[in-house]
């Protein structure tokens, strides 16, 4: 395999708090290839957003410590000067945020947002940048782009606003697009539109995409590869098909079992994950972090099980013997009475 576009090595993000150092991201390593769509799944607080924000060095907090290496096209983003980083951000790596309302400045027009970004990275005239903005709005499916370019954020609906944000992100044809829950704030019909748009744009522009989401369904729909995070660590990662059809980690089973079946049958109860997601302040970290919520937990969940590759590209961090997994998975997906 040639050099990956993004190579994250042992990334650790921690915050100094009153209660000591808290690890939000606890040593994750992964790669994103050219033109690849990687889905990063996990519950709130699993560290998925923080890890990608720190890749872009967008965490502006003096109490935040980022360690590890983030190699983008072979260069380490974490040791770069601010000026160099600013050149890459928005130009080669762009980001789409969850909430399209707060991602846009209410006092400027859609066209201003896009042309500002173009002019920050390229020497073009205002008029030329504005023309590009119109084209971009058109390509993300905003009807009547020529007039809408002068509209303010509040004049757009949620889905349309997200399109403006996507147009901004695409304005410099980035080679990597990080989309942080781009459809979570949207209705399901609008979500379908945006996902389709992202797929079309991906094939058109050839950008790699890292899609952060908590929705297994969304990941399944668009990504080539899936990574599942829990408590700041990767617990499973692999090609979409393998992870969706043959998930290995009990946490992944739980995530899938929590979703109501979509095949038209109705189950009286859902298989769920008992308890609440692990808190980042939990000091007991030399173990599988999912163990307290896992019904298959045993003494061997300590120390931390490593990520092990089982089939090409499909890794998981669980100590259950591989031969027992299918049986265990069936068990896990059978709902039981759970005490809350």
């Amino acid at each position, binding site marked *: 395999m040639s050099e990956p576009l993004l190579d994250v090595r042992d990334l650790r993000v921690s915050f100094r708090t009153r209660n000591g150092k808290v690890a939000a991201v606890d040593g994750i390593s992964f790669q994103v290839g050219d033109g690849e769509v990687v889905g990063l799944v996990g*519950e*709130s607080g699993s560290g998925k957003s923080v890890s990608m924000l720190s890749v872009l060095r967008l965490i502006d907090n003096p109490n935040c410590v980022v360690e590890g290496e983030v190699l983008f096209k072979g260069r380490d983003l974490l040791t770069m000067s601010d000026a160099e980083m600013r050149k890459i951000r928005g130009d080669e790596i762009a980001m789409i945020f969850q909430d399209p309302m707060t991602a846009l400045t209410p006092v400027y027009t859609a066209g201003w947002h896009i042309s500002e970004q173009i002019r920050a990275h390229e020497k073009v005239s205002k008029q030329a940048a504005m023309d590009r903005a119109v084209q971009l709005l058109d390509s993300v499916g905003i009807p009547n782009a020529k007039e809408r370019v002068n509209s303010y954020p509040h004049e757009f*609906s*949620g*889905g*349309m606003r997200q399109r403006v944000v996507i147009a901004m992100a695409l304005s410099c044809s980035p080679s990597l697009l990080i989309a942080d829950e781009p459809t979570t704030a949207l*209705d*399901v*019909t*609008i*979500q*379908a*539109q945006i*996902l*389709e748009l992202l797929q079309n744009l991906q094939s058109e522009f050839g950008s790699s995409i890292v899609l952060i989401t*908590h*929705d*297994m*369904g*969304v990941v*399944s*729909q668009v990504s080539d590869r899936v990574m599942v995070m829990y408590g700041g660590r990767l617990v499973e990662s692999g090609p*979409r*098909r393998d992870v*969706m*059809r043959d998930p290995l980690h009990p946490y992944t089973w*739980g*995530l*899938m*079992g*929590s*979703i*109501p*079946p*979509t*095949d*038209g*049958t*109705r*189950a*009286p*109860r*859902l*298989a*769920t*994950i*008992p308890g*609440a*997601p692990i808190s980042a302040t939990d000091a007991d970290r030399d173990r599988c972090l999912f163990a307290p919520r896992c019904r298959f937990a045993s003494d061997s969940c300590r120390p931390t099980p490593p990520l092990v590759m089982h089939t090409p590209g499909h890794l998981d961090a669980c100590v259950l013997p591989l031969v027992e997994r299918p049986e265990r998975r069936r068990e896990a997906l059978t*709902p039981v009475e*759970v*005490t*809350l």
Partner: protein
Amino acid sequence: MTHPTQDALIANRGEAPVLLEARNVVKHFPIRTPQGKQQVQAVDGVSLKVRAGETLGLVGESGCGKSTFGRCLVRLLDVTSGQVFYDGEDITAMSRKDLRKRRMDFQMVFQDPYASLNPRRRAAATVEEPMRTHGLGTDAEIKQKAIELLSVVGFDESFANRYPHEFSGGQRQRLGIARALALQPRLLIADEPVSALDVSIQAQVLNLLADLQDDNKLTYVFIAHDLAVVHHISDRIGVMYLGELVELGESTALYNNPRHPYTEALLSAIPVIDTEAEVRERIVLTGDLPSPINKPPGCAFAARCRYVQDVCIKEKPLLQIQSDGREVACHFPVGT
């Protein structure tokens, strides 16, 4: 006083009695615009019946009026016109005093577990308040009952003296459910009770709601935008679009065989986990929900419908019962 449930009972022999009935409920909000005074037609003539013990799901996109309709059902909003009958009594015509007493029977669970709890009130006090308001027992009895209710939703006594900020989102939602149960209601209106929660927590709350229904013979009106969740929990589903009911039917039948083009599109938009199962055709709707201020004269969905014909733009289709009992408001129902 009329008793509309009677004829319904006769019409549906063998089925549970109707507990809640909405008749042509309309809710318009007046607004001022540069064009003068206008009306936001949030709910535009919705009629439906909810039988005792069943779960009726209401689904639709944001802005379709499902929450407004839910609030009208418990008269948190006064209707512009139409009636809501609870157990045969018209609650839209009741005096405030009578309504207050009647409300013991129907309670609401709200969407946002952060905004719907008083941040300065401890968990036990939150659950006790409705019982105190209605004078249900002595102080000691009420306190005892509150502890019991908290344990029903999975909290031990150590949680009783905590404040809302000490609870996670899912825990707060359970607290909201305990409060709603304090008056031993027969009907719960749940407005997007799980949409603010993580999937694993969402599943826990859905299971809790199912258990409570079994144990307490509750009737639910479950409002949500996620059709998979609504299908999971509901016996019947009503699909709303732009303030109107466009389809109503038995849950699994509607899910597997949608008749209204909007329901069909809504279903196809649900992201499906890639298993060996057959993938349904995806219909991606173009455009957004039209404005509820100047509603089109014909079918509200016509502008986004892939089967649209001339008549749809001119004539509004009415909700009609099909041969299989499904109710659809469409000139050309799917699959006929």
